[in-house]
């Protein structure tokens, strides 16, 4: 069976930063990624708040740079899905869709994914008018009308991105806008976007093959509002990608994020967690990278102790 010093589950900013650090210490490191290398940041149109890029950088370019830097020092990225992990003696067995391998330490850096609204029509019209990735599917809405749901940084940024294609966007915000001032300033200047504050998104209606309408409610008046649209993009927050660990001894908080101690150790010896999947994470790419570096240093210490025992 294959064995590595460190297996990192995920290949987003946390994972790739950790890999840069560990491979520079000659720690044999494999990353296993089931989705996009770069994680959610790779689906982000533009990153303006990461130090070192004075003019900003596209999420796709940033992910590519992270990957190249990690690979330069010897990190190996495998495109596969981890199904479970299990401690065996002093090692951790990592089961994937293509087999099982062992590691002295494992870092869970699976990040998070966009939440669903859970409303009627959302699943029915998935990819037929309901979307969660503007950079992926926005191009299908050239000259069309759109609804975007959410009021945070992602919702506002992706709505702004979608104005490259759409003629008009209704931005439905359940409470208030929580995006950064820079984004709010851009939003204010953009004549293609109409912001609807205090409006819920209740139902997605279509003609059987395409979305035609979104039904919302004005919370103040309790009146239903119909938004005629060709599609809806949903950005209402993030959920941790950690379901595959539910049957393990790893502990979770009430929302499902992984609990760790201050050294990023989980309840399983030799298994660490960092980045957006960890309870208390700030969901920022800069802090994800910081946690990746911290995890790498803690793992190095752990492996030093591990070598003395094995």
């Amino acid at each position: 069976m294959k064995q590595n010093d460190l297996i990192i589950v995920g290949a987003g900013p946390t994972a790739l930063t950790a890999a840069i650090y560990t491979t520079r210490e000659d720690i044999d490191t494999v990353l296993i990624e089931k989705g996009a290398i770069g994680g959610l940041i790779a689906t982000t149109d533009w990153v303006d708040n990461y130090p070192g890029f004075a003019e900003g950088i596209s999420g796709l370019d940033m992910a590519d740079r992270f990957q190249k830097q990690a690979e330069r020092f010897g990190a190996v990225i495998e495109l596969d899905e981890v199904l479970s992990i299990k401690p065996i003696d002093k090692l951790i067995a990592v089961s994937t869709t293509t087999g099982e391998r062992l590691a002295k330490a494992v870092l869970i850096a699976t990040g998070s994914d966009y939440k669903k609204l859970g409303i009627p029509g959302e699943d029915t019209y998935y990819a037929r008018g309901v979307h969660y990735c503007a950079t992926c599917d926005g191009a299908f809405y050239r000259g069309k009308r759109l609804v975007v749901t959410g009021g945070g940084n992602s919702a506002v940024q992706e709505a702004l991105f979608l104005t490259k294609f759409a003629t008009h966007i209704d931005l439905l915000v359940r409470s208030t806008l929580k995006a950064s001032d820079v984004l709010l300033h851009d939003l204010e200047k953009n004549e293609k976007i109409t912001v609807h504050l205090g409006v819920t998104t209740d139902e997605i209606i279509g003609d059987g093959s395409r979305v035609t309408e979104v039904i919302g409610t004005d919370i103040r008046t309790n009146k239903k509002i119909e938004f005629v649209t060709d599609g809806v993009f949903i950005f209402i927050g993030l959920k941790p990608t950690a379901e595959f660990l539910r049957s393990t001894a790893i502990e979770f908080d009430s929302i499902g994020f992984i609990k760790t101690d201050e050294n990023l150790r989980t309840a399983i010896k030799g298994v660490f967690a960092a980045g957006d999947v960890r309870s208390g994470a700030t969901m920022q790419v800069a802090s994800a990278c910081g946690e990746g570096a911290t995890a790498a240093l803690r793992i190095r210490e752990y492996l030093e102790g591990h070598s003395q025992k094995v």
Partner: protein
Amino acid sequence: MVKDITIYTTNTCVYCVMVKKWLGSKNISYNEVNLDVNPERAQEPVDLTGQLAVPVTVVTKDDDSKEVIVGYNLAKLAPAVA
């Protein structure tokens, strides 16, 4: 046996990049139709899948049968190109 692979992509779609990276890692060649460069062809993947999404990978076999895969889905992509 696989005769031909065509991927419909856009410039900003990371999952399109992942399909290309995965095929590249297996030394499998493919044709790419970038819908940002060729917007007049945007209806083709929609007609194939009924969905407004990329990537769409069309695997044509030697007998001219076609397998169409939406998204970056290794569980479907791997057997389709095997």
